[in-house]
């Protein structure tokens, strides 16, 4: 007699539409979404979470979440939207935003920084793929020095100035309870990132303060690399600019 037990697969909180939604080969927005869905499931937050999708290729994750959701919301403004929801619905509701790097730390700078300063009890997830994926691979605030994009055809240089380390910056604000950066370039990193995501959500559950997780995420077509090479590029190039780890982790803000 054989027993067949499901080990893992598509998270329960991910909806499957009749036709698979288009995505680029090797795009890691799906993986970032997967980690969040898994953690929401493990923390049993499916019933009381609202997912706010910024404009990014990852907006799809809002549509595909078996959660109350809205998106794409106005570019960069998800933290404002989430803040209002949290204030109105109270502690019992978990508010998460899913944003791209361009969304969160270019046009969204004010929205993000101010939410952190206010100690807003929401969790912001930022998929950092070092470019504007959705619009076709332009420079983002996170684009590495020397990196070529469609708007830095010669590579980013002093004309454009320096990349922004979002997780470290957010960690500077007094209202931030948690800030970390993960990647999904190996099973070990997958698990580590999952831990960050879980801790971030726990800060919200425990009503401590603002929480933030940045996740490095491959964008093969815009990086002009095969998917597997993208993961190598993250390990070799991106992580030296964007070190993985926790930058703030407080039990209480005072």
């Amino acid at each position: 007699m054989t027993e067949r037990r499901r080990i893992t697969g598509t998270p329960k909180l991910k909806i499957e539409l009749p036709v698979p939604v288009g995505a680029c080969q090797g795009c890691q927005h799906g993986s970032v979404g997967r980690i969040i869905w898994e953690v929401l499931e493990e923390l049993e937050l499916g019933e009381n979470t609202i997912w706010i999708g910024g404009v990014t290729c990852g907006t799809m994750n809002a549509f595909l979440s078996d959660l109350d959701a809205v998106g794409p919301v106005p570019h960069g403004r998800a933290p404002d939207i989430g803040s209002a929801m949290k204030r109105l619905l109270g502690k019992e509701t978990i508010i998460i935003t899913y944003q791209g790097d361009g969304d969160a730390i270019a046009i969204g700078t004010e929205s993000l920084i101010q939410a952190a300063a206010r100690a807003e009890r929401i969790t912001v997830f930022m998929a950092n793929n070092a470019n504007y994926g959705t619009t076709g691979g332009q420079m983002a605030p996170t684009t590495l020095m020397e990196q070529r994009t469609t708007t830095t055809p010669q590579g980013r240089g002093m004309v454009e100035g320096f990349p922004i380390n979002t997780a470290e910056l957010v960690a500077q604000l007094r209202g931030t309870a948690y800030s970390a950066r993960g990647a999904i370039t190996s099973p070990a990193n997958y698990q580590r990132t999952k831990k960050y995501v879980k801790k971030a959500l726990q800060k919200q559950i425990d009503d401590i303060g603002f929480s933030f997780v940045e996740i490095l995420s491959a964008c093969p077509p815009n990086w002009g690399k095969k998917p597997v090479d993208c993961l190598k590029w993250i390990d070799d190039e991106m992580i030296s600019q964007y070190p993985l780890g926790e930058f703030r982790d407080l039990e209480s803000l005072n």
Partner: protein
Amino acid sequence: MSSERFEVIFAGVGGMGALTAGQLLAEAALAYYPCVTWYPNITTARRNAPADCIVIYSKEVIASPLIHRVGAAVIIESSQLRTFEDRVKPGGLVIVETAGLKDHVSRRDITVKKIPGLETALRLGNSRAANLLMLGAYIGSTNTLPPELIEEKLEDRFSKNKKVLEINLRAFHEGIRLGHN
């Protein structure tokens, strides 16, 4: 090649296959036709959504680059047949990829050519050349432009990658051959 005006849709899914084929045709047509338009219909191309383009080349001013019914449609992705067969004028031509082809053309007033583009391209060395094979089939079927003009454009575009160029040229020629039949 005597007529005054030609209209063709290239339809595919994702990537730039259909769009590139149409663009090559349009660029090549410029040498012969004073008026050429290329109109892309891309939804969210980077993410594997349908994408098509309309190429019009004409001796006379082209009022609208966008028209619903055209003289010919080249269906690079067989799943798009249903959407596009209606857009061909009576008497027009549909060239369709056979790989994955499930639908039938129900209309009787158009000519249909089924071309094993993907399979042939794969055989020639790269499935990505299927779009050029289909372009060749269109040229072979319609004779609306001398193939050399398109070859030139191909050479310009892939000048940096001789291998890709070669496969593309081979696919294009094979397409012409299949189109002639």
